[in-house]
């Protein structure tokens, strides 16, 4: 399945793409929020610690004193084993703590603590600074308390959060992929259902597609249905037209032929008789061609969707012989039947087989000399053979494969009325049934044997 050419593939890929983007965004947001939360916690503790130190500042005789509360620093130990630094500055002098701890930048003001991230002694530290006015209101001093802590614990927390967020992101992505697969399958189910219902029909089934299509497909289904309706109407119009055309052409031809026969009877001069005789032959030829072309069109039409009737080939052969016996009788030709007594079962299109056998027998009668015999036989071997063997002019010097080509007639057939479609029809019927038409010269050198071989 080429994903570029499959709706399901495209839908799936797009859903997976969206899931990947969402997973990434989810990962980034979770990590960001968690890190900010951890950072916020550290800031709060640093501020609380600085405030606690500031709270213990005293002013005695204009001197600022500090009794460093232990709890102020021990609360910082709750996060992790990070090192803690502090510095209390009063009027530019370091009162206590690490004198080289940089002061926060920007500097804190009264009531506004300042937070900053600095590098101190080779480590990244986070620092919080508060300002406190110490001493009597008239002569107070601004004292800055700065508390800093390394961020190793925070980095560990951040790593843990990243790992978790990555895991959740991947899990989300995998789940989303599975859901995409399911969703794309589900979304396409109505299409698959429709495709199946269309694919199941035979080529002759031109009824409207009955399934209730999804809204998006309704225009397509409507177009398909209206196309099928038009096709079906046009096919039945074509059939009606052919029948009507045949009627219109044949009825006046019948009048002309009947009149010509009458005239032929009444004429006495041989040259006049010959002229009318040629007229009648021309009429016969055109009517025969028209008939065989219609038969040929019918064969092509029916061969596409072969009927599977339960047939008895022996009975079928009998019917065909019955049908053409009067025609053979006119030339004193005897049709000998060598048929098995038991029915010969075969599944196929009875109308087509009848057309094929009639064409073969009709051909045999046409090319047989008067007073001769045609043998119709049905034999059951590994295949089924339906054959007509005649004592006619045979196939002297004729390319047999050419006889079954459309409008091709044997080179020794000039004096017989024909269209060159008879054996083509038989050949096509045989092939539609998975069999073949065989034309072989007779053993004794007189006539030919034309047989329809069908698989059992």
């Amino acid at each position, binding site marked *: 399945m080429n994903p570029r050419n499959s709706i399901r593939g495209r839908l799936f890929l797009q859903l997976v793409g969206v899931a990947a983007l969402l997973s990434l965004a989810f990962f980034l947001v979770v990590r960001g929020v968690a890190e900010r939360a951890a950072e916020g916690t550290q800031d709060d503790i640093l501020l609380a610690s600085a405030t606690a130190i500031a709270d213990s500042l005293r002013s005695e005789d204009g001197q600022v004193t500090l009794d460093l509360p232990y709890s102020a620093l021990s609360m910082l130990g709750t996060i992790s084993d990070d090192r803690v630094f502090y510095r209390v500055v009063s009027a530019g002098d370091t009162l206590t703590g690490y004198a080289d701890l940089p002061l926060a930048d920007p500097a804190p003001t009264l009531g506004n603590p300042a937070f900053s991230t600095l590098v101190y002694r080779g480590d990244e530290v986070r620092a919080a600074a508060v300002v406190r006015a110490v001493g009597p209101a008239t002569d107070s001093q601004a004292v800055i308390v700065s508390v800093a802590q390394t961020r190793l614990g925070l980095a560990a927390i951040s790593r843990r959060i990243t790992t978790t967020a990555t895991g959740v992101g991947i899990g989300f992505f995998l789940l989303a992929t599975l859901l995409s697969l399911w969703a794309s399958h589900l979304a396409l189910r109505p299409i698959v259902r429709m495709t199946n219902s269309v694919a199941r029909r035979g080529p002759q089934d031109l009824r409207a597609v009955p399934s209730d299509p999804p809204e998006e497909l309704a225009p397509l289904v409507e177009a398909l249905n209206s196309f099928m309706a038009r096709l079906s109407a046009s096919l039945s119009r074509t059939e009606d037209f052919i029948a009507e055309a045949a009627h219109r052409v044949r009825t006046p031809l*019948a009048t002309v032929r009947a009149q010509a026969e009458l005239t032929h009877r009444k004429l006495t001069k041989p040259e006049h008789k010959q002229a009318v005789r040629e007229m009648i032959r021309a009429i016969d030829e055109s009517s025969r061609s028209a008939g065989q072309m219609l038969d040929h069109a019918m064969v092509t039409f029916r061969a596409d969707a072969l009927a599977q009737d339960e047939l008895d080939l022996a009975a079928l052969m009998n019917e065909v012989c019955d049908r053409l016996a009067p025609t053979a009788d006119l030339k004193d030709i005897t049709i000998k039947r060598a048929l098995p007594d038991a029915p010969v079962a075969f599944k196929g299109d009875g109308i087509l087989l009848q057309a094929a056998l009639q064409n073969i027998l009709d051909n045999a009668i046409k090319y047989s000399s008067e007073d001769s015999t045609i043998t119709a036989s049905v034999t059951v071997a590994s295949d089924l053979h339906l054959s007509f063997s005649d004592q006619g002019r045979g196939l002297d010097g004729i390319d047999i494969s050419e006889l079954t080509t459309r409008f091709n007639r044997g080179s020794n057939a000039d004096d017989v009325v024909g269209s060159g479609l008879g054996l083509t029809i038989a050949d096509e019927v045989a092939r539609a049934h998975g069999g073949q038409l065989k034309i072989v010269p007779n053993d004794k050198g007189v006539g030919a044997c034309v047989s329809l071989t069908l698989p059992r």
Partner: protein
Amino acid sequence: MRFLLIEDNAKLARAVVERLQLDGHAVDHADRLEVAENFISVADYDLILLDIMLPDGDGRTFLQQQRQREKRTPVIVTTARSAVSDRISLLDLGADDYITKPFDFAELEARCRAVLRRQGGAADNRTSFAGTILDSTTAELKFGDHSIDLRNRELRLLEVFFGAPGQVFSKSHLMDRLFSFSDEASENAIEVYVARLRKRLEGSGARIETVRGLGYRMVAA
């Protein structure tokens, strides 16, 4: 034979009637089913020739009605349509045979004879001359205690002679009766068939005589 022709095309009907009469048949013509019903109720026919497309109905309906009748007259459908399936459905509906327009009258006659023979010789189609009987339906020649089966061409040739005993028929006339338009036959072929008929008639009361320069005629032996 007595025919009922049901055909709405007037020109075609006239030609068919005339052509059948030429061979000695009696023909009534109905151009609608209604007229045909009237004919059938008052006369007996050996055969009905039925066109399928008619102004006052479908010939197929008529076929089905005919089938239900007690005394059933055989029907040969003359159809201008030619799809094989169409023709087969006609037989299923009860037609005894069909012939596609335009048709050869010799073939029509052969089909009529075949249908009548299948029906068991319902029609009385015997002609006799000088103690010799020709049965067209069974294709038999009978005289004394002889009964001879005739081949188709022998029968048709004898029909000509039995139709008008004593009359001289030219070779070319006999050829017209005997050979179809697609056969290339020479006048010698007639001599061959006449020779055969003479053999068939040996021992009967009739014989065929050569009238030099004119043709042949049948006379009492």
